[in-house]
């Protein structure tokens, strides 16, 4: 009997390649995106991104509506960064109309966009904390984010969708009472942000999960066209607020935040530092708000647009957002093309999941049990000859090894 066992000349080694669908329901942030991850053991060997779950045909719809109605449509492309979308589109319209908004309106636009950057970064950082399993921090950050939402409500009249920007200015002005309220909120928020910053820098859980995970080199960032805080965390100083100097950014002092490390922790810390810069910008604007009119009379704006085209960029919280608007005269735009930073950052980072553990793939991290979709192949090792042969699953089932 024992001799028979020793006579075994073949070992069937089955490397399990698991295909793990991450998403499309709530991969990490609550947005529909499917990242298919192929894992061998704990390590990712391949990843694919499948998009298109949230296609709403907004660009086509924009051609059907009038130039002015599209401002509200563009604001609804993204809920978190609605002001930057509206600002980018409106600046394109102003370029076609050859119109310049008054300085006070420019400052107020900048103020709302910076408030938006604050609450967007806070949301992303809170979700990061939640994904690595630090739910207490998530709750605390979301509570303090509410203060900035209140500030946005004071300025624009709504917590989330601002609908604040119009051709030639903004929709409502600030008075001294509101400015005092805003300043109070900013002084309340600043120590909280500094506190969370320290938590991110010093907490053991966050350090273990974020440091040296998902590293991107500056070469990878530039060759894959990554934008925003992702690029800045790898030391690539790209910021269209600085390059383009639109609205009041030419007059407001600020700095581009970069870090060298390029890992998940660096991206979080870049966002924290950017929040600090945003707070400084907001405070500068509230102290140096120019006098004059900011709200134009909407009834006097031209109904028909001249022929022309415009290409505008804005630094959204996630990176550079671009709009291309083409007018052939009349009331409707001929073409509105939107390119959002998330598209670059999500699709083009897919190869970089490889060689990380499954738990490091940001989407699966928190909420999904991996499900085994298929087992693709086995390897037969001939012990006598020392060769390896790949056999398909069907042949294995037939016993044809």
């Amino acid at each position, binding site marked *: 009997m024992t001799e028979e066992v020793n006579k075994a000349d073949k070992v069937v080694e089955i490397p399990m390649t698991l295909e793990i669908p991450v998403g499309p329901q709530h991969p990490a942030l609550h947005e529909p995106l499917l990242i298919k991850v192929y894992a061998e053991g704990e390590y990712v060997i391949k990843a694919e991104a499948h998009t298109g779950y949230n296609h709403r045909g907004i660009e086509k719809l924009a051609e059907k509506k009038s130039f002015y109605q599209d401002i509200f*449509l563009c604001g609804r492309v993204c809920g978190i960064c609605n002001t930057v979308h509206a600002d980018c589109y409106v600046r394109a319209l102003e370029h076609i109309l050859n119109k310049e908004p008054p300085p006070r309106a420019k400052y107020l636009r900048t103020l709302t966009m910076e408030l938006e950057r604050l609450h967007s970064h806070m949301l992303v950082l809170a979700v990061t904390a939640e994904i690595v399993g630090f739910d207490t921090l998530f709750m605390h950050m979301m509570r303090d984010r509410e203060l900035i939402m209140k500030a946005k409500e004071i300025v624009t*009249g709504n917590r989330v969708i601002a609908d604040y920007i119009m051709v030639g200015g903004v929709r409502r002005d600030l008075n001294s009472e509101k400015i005092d309220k805003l300043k109070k909120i900013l002084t309340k928020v600043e120590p909280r942000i500094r506190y969370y910053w320290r*938590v991110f820098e*010093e907490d053991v859980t966050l*350090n273990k999960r974020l440091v040296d995970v998902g590293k991107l080199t500056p070469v990878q960032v530039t060759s894959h066209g990554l934008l925003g805080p992702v690029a800045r965390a790898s030391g690539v100083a790209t910021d269209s607020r600085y390059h383009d100097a639109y609205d009041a950014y030419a007059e407001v002092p600020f700095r581009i935040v970069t870090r060298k490390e390029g890992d998940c922790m660096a991206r979080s810390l870049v966002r924290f530092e950017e929040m600090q810069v945003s707070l400084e910008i907001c405070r500068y604007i509230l102290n140096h708000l120019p006098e004059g009119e900011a709200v134009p009379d909407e009834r006097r704006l031209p109904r028909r647009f001249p022929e022309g085209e415009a290409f505008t960029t804005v630094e959204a919280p996630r990176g550079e957002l671009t709009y291309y608007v083409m007018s052939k005269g009349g009331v409707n735009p001929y073409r509105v093309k939107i390119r959002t930073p998330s598209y670059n950052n999500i699709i083009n980072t897919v190869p970089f999941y490889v060689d990380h553990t499954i738990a490091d793939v940001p989407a699966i991290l928190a909420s999904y049990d991996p499900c085994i979709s298929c087992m693709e192949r086995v390897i037969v090792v001939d012990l006598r000859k020392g060769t390896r042969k790949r056999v398909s699953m069907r042949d294995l089932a037939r016993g044809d090894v």
Partner: protein
Amino acid sequence: MAKIPLLKEVVKLIFSKPATIQYPREETPVEPDARGRQYADLNKCVGCSLCMIECPSKAIKMEKIPEGYEVPKRNARKIYPVVDYLKCIFCYRCVTVCPTKAYVMTSEYRLASDAPVNSRELSLSTLKKASQEPSQGDEEG
């Protein structure tokens, strides 16, 4: 590694007031000029239909003012805008394009109801009934 006083924070919060608002029982504080329910004041409305044309979400329909109301003479066609609040996106474009500034702005945000949610009753309540004594013209001018 330095210790973060998160535990201190948590203990402090156990004894403080909860941050959550028990919404239906407790009111959510909103700014007095937050964008809430808006409706047309029919003493000012001239029935020009501009708000209906410009509405981005097509939430406004023009309707005939029913019999039994005193309609100002400026509103020759005797029509008025009815806002469907379930379609409305509260962008307030109707408010800013109105040539007579007829829209009344409120910060009312609690619009959930069994009945159809529109501005019909609110707008008609701004008009006087014809059975009452004749009005002294349009005071808002």
